[in-house]
């Protein structure tokens, strides 16, 4: 598993660059990851990232876009505005979580 430096910290990532250790994530790292994929973090972005982090703790799985809408309260349409093109994967990446597995 590769180890890379993000925001001055060593973190373990998979071959695509997604963090693999939940505890290695921090808000500084999230900001750096967001910057790499050209996302400017606002309060709305943070609301989703924080929901994903919390939800993962209990579900042990990354929430899908559907779940971010139904449980996290952020409509799918808004997710596409905040994280264009591939919201589910971009949100997971910034939140330091694996890509969502669910089909829907």
């Amino acid at each position, binding site marked *: *598993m*590769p*180890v*890379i*430096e*993000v925001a001055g910290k*060593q973190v*373990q*990532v998979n*071959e*695509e*660059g*997604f963090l693999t250790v939940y505890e290695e994530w921090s808000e500084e790292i999230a900001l750096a990851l967001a910057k*790499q*994929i*050209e996302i400017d973090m606002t309060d709305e972005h943070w609301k989703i990232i924080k929901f994903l982090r919390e939800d993962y703790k209990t579900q042990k799985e990354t929430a899908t*876009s*559907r*779940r971010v*809408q*139904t449980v996290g309260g952020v*409509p*799918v*349409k808004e997710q*596409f505005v905040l994280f*264009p*093109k*591939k*919201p*589910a*994967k*971009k949100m997971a*990446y910034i939140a330091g979580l694996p890509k969502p597995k*669910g*089909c*829907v």
Partner: protein
Amino acid sequence: MTITEVAPSIVPNFGKDDDSGRKLAIICSKGNLDMAYPGLILANAALGEGVDTMIFFTFWGFDMISKARMNDLQFSPAGNTAMHLPGTNAHIPQAVMPAPGMTAMATKMLKKQIADLDVPEVPDFLDQIVAAGGHLWACRMSADMNKYTMADLRDDVEGIISASDFIEMTEGAQLLFI
């Protein structure tokens, strides 16, 4: 972990430089509950991958976008030889499938299984697809046969179009017929 080497930064490829303009067109021609889902699941997945997606509803697929019928799609095990007793590999004899109440029971069971996976019902699913940027179109000939106008269809259906309009509109798209 004994690895101490710092690998070069790795950033996932989210298709930033991808201007291939990938497009997907899905033709939904079935109105059975079980056959409504494959197109919706694939459309939703494609949109989540940044693929421009359109769905064309034709023949029985019209029931998916008909205001009067979209909440009442049904699943019948009759004629479906892949239907097994739940949780087993045992076939249910086809002879019992047309029994009264069988369709209602099978529909209820399927809906529950789908809901258990947190997959939305068909109208909600189409809401989500449209919210994700998907486009819905209805088939002219099917509309004429059913004497349907735009007023009978979901408000987010963008139009009733002919087969040739559809072919023109989907130039360069990958296509799925369901």
